[in-house]
């Protein structure tokens, strides 16, 4: 099954760029997009129109979002027993120290700053793919659904 990636990003341009970048990198990736924090939470909680939403294997989260800010989303994710196991990668334009610190405090899995150059951006996406989706062991989806603190075998 393809890797389910939830991209929480409000800039359509960035969405498209990301999509293009992933397409060039790894075809076995299903990119889901939420344009703001509320939508992101609805997707994660499978509420409303997202009832049938799959559980993401990884979340790429921008910080500056309308309605519900990325930091809030991060907090919600990491407080929710059923969601906190999902690796959440902050992918944002800001490289401000305060943002970095806050994100890690909220237990972001890692923080990546979007490069301005296209090449660099594409390279970053490739890195994300290589690291998080190839090398890193992710918890199995089924067990992720079970609200158990210890990731056990299905």
């Amino acid at each position, binding site marked *: 099954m393809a890797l389910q990636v939830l991209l929480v990003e409000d*800039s359509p*341009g*960035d969405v498209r*760029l990301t999509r*293009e970048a992933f397409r060039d990198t790894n075809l076995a990736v299903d990119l889901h997009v939420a344009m703001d924090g509320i939508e992101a939470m609805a997707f994660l909680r499978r509420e409303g129109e997202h009832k049938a939403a799959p559980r993401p294997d990884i979340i790429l989260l921008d910080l500056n979002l309308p309605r519900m800010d990325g930091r809030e989303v991060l907090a919600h994710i990491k407080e929710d027993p059923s969601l906190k196991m999902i690796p959440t990668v902050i992918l944002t*334009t*800001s490289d*401000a*120290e305060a943002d970095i610190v806050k994100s890690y405090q909220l237990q972001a899995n890692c923080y990546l700053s*979007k490069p*301005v*150059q*296209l*090449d660099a*951006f594409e390279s970053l996406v490739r890195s994300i793919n290589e690291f998080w989706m190839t090398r890193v062991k992710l918890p199995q989806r089924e067990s992720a659904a079970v609200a158990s603190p210890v990731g056990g075998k299905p």
Partner: protein
Amino acid sequence: MNSGGDRRVRLAYVSAILILAGVGALSYLSMVRTDRSERWVRHTHEVLIDLQELVISLRGVQSNSRGFALAGEESYRESFLAGVGAARRIEVEIRGLTADNPGQQQRLRALEALVEQKVRHAQLVIGIRESRGLQAAADEIRTGTGEKLMRGVESAVSLMRGEETRLLVLREAEVKRHFGQTRMAVILGTLVGLLIAATAAWSIRRDRLTRETAEKAKRLGEGSFLALANNISQFAWMADEKGYIFWYNDRWFEYTGTTLEEMAGWGWQAVHHPDHVQRVVDKIKKCFDSGEVWEDTFPLRGRDGRYRLFLSKAVPIHDTDGKVLRWFGTNTDITDSRDLGSRYRGLLEAAPDAMVVVDTAGNIVLLNVQAEKQFGYNRDELVGQPVKNIIPEGFAERIVADDLRSTADALAQQIGTGIELVARRKDMTEFPIEIMLSPLESAGGILVTAAIRDISARRAAEGRYRGLLEAAPDAMVVVDIAGNIVLLNAQAEKQFGYNRNELLGQPVKNIVPEGFAERLVADDLRSTEEALAQQIGTGIELVARRKDGSEFPIEIMLSPLESEGGVLVTSAIRDISARKEAELQLLLKVQELNRSNEELGQFAYIASHDLQEPLRMVASYTQLLSRRYKGKLDSDADEFIAFAVDGANRMQRLIQDLLTYSRVGTKGKDLLDTSSEAALDRALDNLRGAVTDSGAVVTHDPLPSVLADEMQLVQLFQNIIGNAIKYQKGGVPLIHVWATRNEDMDWLFSVKDNGLGIDPQYFSRIFGMFQRLHKREEYDGTGIGLAICKKIVERHGGAISVESAPGQGSTFRFTLTEGGQPS
């Protein structure tokens, strides 16, 4: 010496000797008498014997005459003559022996007559024989005349003998009696003598014991006496009977600081007061001579040169005959316990101020020499006079008891406070005085002592001071330690809107409600001096209140002022409303500036941040376009896209730099002790790529610890060294970093490179924002690097500059303050 005992012993001795002499004399007399008596006895015996011998001689004569008569032999005649001679000799002897006895003499004469007759007869016989012969002589003999004569002689002799015998008996009795007497006398005398000797011996022994005890006591006493005499607080001394002082106790020497050598005899005069010594000497001499107890009072000089008063006494010590043996004297210090009156007088005279003692009627009772001087009067001219004569107003009234209060009450109000009045001299000139009153109990009632001080000088000084005060540009207020206003100047009147009189004597709290009076008050924690000392010289900001109740900010500067009445505080009061306003304005401005800076910072940050996103879009998509449609469009399109992409990229870089620039201020951290060496190493680390690519050699001297934001310091080094590496003409960049101290004791960092160098006309421009000296094609960069450096350095309180010349490399210099810790 026990003279009594001595006398008795002498007496005993004398008696014994007398008695022995007496006994001796008596014995001698007795012996003499006995001897005489015996002699008389012997005498008598001799008479008796002589008488006997006479008889015998006569018988011899008789017989010899008869013999001759018979025999007619010559030998008989010779013997007869011899016998007669003997008889005559015996008669003479008897005469001598009985010379004292007239009775016997008489009888002797009778006897001698008879003897004579007998002898004649015997002679006759002899003569008859011779002449007539035998028969005639025999006839003569037969007549018996011779016999008869013989018998007459014998009876005369026996008469005499009887007398002598009688005498003998008497004399023998006498002798016996005398002997008995002598014996008696001797025995008695001896007994008496012995008795006396015994008595004497016993008496001597008793005396000896007594004396021994006395001596022991004396010895003990002497030691104790010395100890006692040296430990009493009085002085003690001893003089011989002539008044020659031979011993003083330790107290004397301690007080006078003299030695025995100096004081012995009459040397003590040296520590007497010259005015008194003569009368003391006269009086004591009189007593020494008369033996009367001596008492006197006089000053003695101590080792410190000061005189103290001593009550002195001396008593004579007599011997058993009543003669003065020595004198024992003491001196007691009565300086302090002296009768109040005279001591007070002494105090009065010694006082530096004029002192006048006045009774309740206002008349002068006593004054001292200072008062005489100050007022120009003689003592006699003032005693008994009303004090109004010298102090016309203000004194007498104060002490007079009236219906409202007694003198004591009246006085009580005045005591201790200095009252300023006007006094008048004898020459009628007046002068200002300050008087201080104190009561004095005396036998005659309450007296008032006034210490009078001429305050003309003070007034003059005050006048000068007042002048100064008035002339001062600031408001000046003089306050006493109780917090009341004592003096103020015209400026103060103006500032506070009061009239002078409304403020004098009032608490300073009326014009400075808080912060002033409290500072002056001595409390348990500190004295007024200390309280003041803390305030002196420092400007204190307080709030003052005008008469109309409005308040205004002031700054006061305190300084102490010594005055007669104690410490006063002069305060210079400056209205700082204007200054405060200015300060406030400044504060507001600064706040505004800060806020605006903050806003600006935020703005710059947000702006750059938010600008990034659209820019990314533009740049990214144009690049995508370029990539995806490269070759599919014509070459113009390619070129257009290239320009667009390039523009977008540059825009990005500019925004990044702007962001970095704005962050220097807004995201700057606190300045802490930072190792500049470590920062340099970090910067070189960040430049690793550029360093390796260019083969740059970066060296440095030991670098100090500075107060800095570490990240910014790294940025600073990074920018400068990055520039040094970049702006090269293709050689190996050689860069050296070092630091020296400048005159402000800050660190001056220097970074020297061997790069292109900079034309001096551009020195200030290069630190400007986005200023570049080269075309983009030559050297890349946005031109903000040095602006960022400048901002960083200025944020650290330092300054940045450059020394350079085209083709000769550049040396960038900047200052940073020293850190606390060693690097």
